[in-house]
């Protein structure tokens, strides 16, 4: 066991970890941030996606010790009090979720996509870059609409 410090949603957080502890376990079990989900544990589904040093990663396939000193953003860091983040708001308005299990990972991955592409974002790019996020409910169309809307592109409100 060692004590590990990672900046999560802007605050330095510490927890005791083993070298084999996964980043997602650090977040969920160490810090109680259970918004980040584990869907597959085999790097396929993207439910565990968080942003680490500015890039979307699957936290089930990153060791917590690899994130030592890094800046991590999770779904819990998006809303401003009761005010939803524009992406959360767009997902809600466009019915981009049904059971909601994939949603935290979808939103964190989408945040990265929007931040990298800005106003150049189009539906094809959204679909390509969300390939690592599986949704068993929605059929993806409304997710793509929500992401484009939040990016300020297309889809009337």
């Amino acid at each position: 066991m060692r004590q590990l410090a990672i900046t999560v949603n802007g605050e330095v957080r510490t927890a005791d970890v083993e070298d084999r502890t996964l980043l997602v376990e650090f977040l969920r079990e160490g810090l109680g941030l259970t918004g980040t989900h584990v869907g597959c544990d085999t790097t396929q589904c993207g439910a565990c996606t968080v942003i680490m040093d500015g890039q979307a990663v699957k936290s089930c396939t990153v060791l917590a010790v690899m994130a030592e000193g890094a800046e991590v953003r999770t779904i819990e860091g998006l809303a401003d009090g009761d005010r939803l983040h524009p992406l959360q708001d767009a997902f809600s308005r466009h019915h981009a979720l049904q059971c909601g299990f994939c949603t935290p990972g979808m939103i964190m991955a989408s945040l990265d996509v929007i931040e990298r592409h800005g106003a150049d974002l189009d539906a094809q790019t959204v679909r390509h870059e969300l390939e690592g996020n599986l949704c068993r409910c929605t059929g993806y169309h409304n997710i793509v609409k929500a992401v484009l809307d939040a990016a300020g592109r297309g889809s009337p409100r």
Partner: protein
Amino acid sequence: MMYGFSFHRPKSLAEAADVFARADDPTYVSGGHSLLPTMKSRLAAPSDLIALTHLPELQGITRDGDRVIIGAAQTHASVASAALVQDALPALAQLAGSIGDMQVRHRGTIGGSLANNDPAADYPSAVLALGATIVTSTREIHADDYFDGMFATALELGEIITAIAFPIPKSAGYAKMRNPASRYALAASFVAKTEDAVRVAITGAGSDGVFRWSAAEKALGASFDSAALAGLALSADDMLGDMHADASYRAHLAAICTQRAVDNQGRLTLL
């Protein structure tokens, strides 16, 4: 849960090799996107993990005359988005941008992919077709001497890939047919044309991992046109067959991918 291990973050290449030499059953780790899934399914249980991606010797994408040199720790995403690679070797940049998914591309590295040599991985085809050089902690290995069958390479125990040097061809193209679920290649072909030769490397299909298709190279060397491939076929005996695609289908796909790579030089074509 994975079996326990000790994690190390050495400060230099020399220290990494030193930790490796002294540990019981060590493994290097770069992006961890081949290694950690294997460890999580308990198919590997190293005693020590030695991290490499922060080492200065493994960084950078540079141009050195007629070669592009990519540090082993460069992620797939960083190769895909590097203007230098997009200009000199667009097919390679687009190949990197087609690996796995966005999150995988943010962690996985070119060095890790080449050390792993998965028979369905993308980079091995580019390295072999372009006749690249694998630069390691101790020597330089030409692509023709590097790949040694599925998941096997010429790397010695403890040897670290530091960079890959790609000669810039006149043109190159990459075409692949992906397994729609795993997104790994069912078959893919990288075709590179230089001043005096054509090289064709097939990944995803061969039962011995990546290989050069010499009959196609000869035909394309005489006439660089996909029509020159008419009548050429790969033997199903040398192909992988599994629940996703049988051997004769893979042999057929590899030939189609080669045609498309010839027809679409300068870019990636997804079938």
